[in-house]
């Protein structure tokens, strides 16, 4: 269509009223892309209050703070917006925490690598495995509570059950921790089953912490579970000739029992989190 042709007022009226048949509408639409005159004539027929409301929404969207690295990553992998915001606000999912954990486990793994073949080989491997098992417990403890969680008050008041929030965050912390420990384990001198023995203890200790936190503050629960584990594991490794005694089949079975027990406790007592994380 030439630039001098313009749509008749009746055509624009009927298009704006959605009363124009497809064929006319299609040719008008093709013309509108090229003709500023007809576009502005059509604009006069649009509902301006709605358009102003949408413009306000656009300004709000432009003014909204840009989500951080972790939140954008979560959104990218398909986590829903509000869950991503909650997870990103978790202290132990911040980049600094993740880096600290990676450095601690990486150092332990490299030390074990360096000690391979010496008489400290067993002890340094034990150190790494023990840390890998206890890391998610520390992460879960640092994820909740006043003074630790910047969204603590918001979380209490949020229209989301506290136990649900806790489990979402605990799962995310556990996953992040498992990934970091898994990557660090690649640097271990041994590449047999030994590099995976921390997995079941990590699960068991995390669940035990969550279960214990239905009675006491999460921090206290984590300290009890974490410290208990470190002492018992160290005692087992000293008492036995094998430094990895705490990871043998017998203790793996014990941890499976701990997982089962914790799941039962959580199933019965998860409502205790509601509105009182922590008491």
């Amino acid at each position: 269509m030439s630039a001098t042709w313009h749509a008749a007022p009746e055509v624009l009226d009927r298009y704006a009223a959605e009363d124009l048949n497809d064929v006319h509408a299609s040719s008008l639409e093709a013309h509108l892309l090229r003709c500023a005159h007809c576009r502005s004539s059509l604009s006069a027929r649009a509902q301006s209050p709605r358009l102003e409301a949408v413009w306000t929404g656009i300004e709000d969207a432009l003014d909204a703070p840009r989500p951080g690295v972790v939140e954008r990553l979560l959104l990218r992998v398909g986590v829903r917006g509000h869950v991503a915001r909650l997870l990103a606000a978790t202290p132990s999912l911040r980049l600094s925490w993740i880096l600290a954990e990676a450095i601690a486990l990486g150092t332990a793994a490299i030390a074990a690598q360096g000690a391979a073949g010496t008489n400290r080989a067993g002890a340094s491997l034990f150190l790494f495995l023990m840390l890998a098992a206890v890391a998610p417990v520390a992460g879960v403890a640092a994820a909740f509570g006043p003074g630790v969680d910047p969204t603590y008050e918001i979380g209490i008041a949020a229209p989301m059950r506290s136990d649900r929030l806790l489990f979402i965050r605990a799962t995310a912390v556990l996953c992040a921790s498992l990934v970091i420990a898994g990557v660090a384990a690649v640097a271990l001198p041994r590449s047999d089953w030994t590099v995976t023995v921390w997995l079941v203890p990590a699960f068991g200790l995390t669940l035990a912490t969550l279960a214990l936190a239905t009675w006491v503050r999460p921090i206290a629960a984590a300290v009890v579970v974490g410290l208990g584990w470190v002492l018992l594991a160290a005692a087992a490794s000293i008492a036995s000739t094998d430094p990895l005694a705490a990871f043998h089949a017998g203790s793996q079975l014990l941890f499976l029992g701990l997982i089962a027990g914790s799941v039962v406790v959580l199933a019965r007592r998860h409502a205790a989190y509601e509105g009182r994380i922590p008491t």
Partner: protein
Amino acid sequence: MTIRADGDDELIAAVATGDREALAELYRRHAPWLVLRLLRRCADPGTVEEVVQDTFVAVWKGAGRYRATGEVPAWIWGIGIRRLISRLRQRPMPIAAAQDEAMVSAEDEVLIGVEHGDLGAALGRLSPELRAVVQATVLDGLTTKEAATLLGIPQGTVKTRAARARRELREALA
């Protein structure tokens, strides 16, 4: 909003440098027809408003990638229709009912005062289903997959309907 006399290309260039006023002027010029055109493809005004909002936020963020070709309306439409399709993918809903009048009545022709050539008449004789496919793939420039989401039908159906529409148009114009 102050009114600016700049061309669309200049406005986009200004938006790319972070000029809110330029975005406001683009919105004033292009949001009204975008709303009306989207409403013909999605009957839910709430969804259309969300899509228009998404579109202008995308214009704000993507202005730097725009190549000055003087085709700002086509660029904005391309963003808008794709935003609509991704919204429909998340939550499918009944699309705007295809109009049933297969023929453009002579009354309409007189009232509107538009004369269509052979192609317009041939397009008018297609069934509403076939016309919707032609509109989505040819006039709106969508891929088969995008058209399938917009129309709420399988991709295979889009292909067979497009082939049938092509055949009917070719026969009508022969």
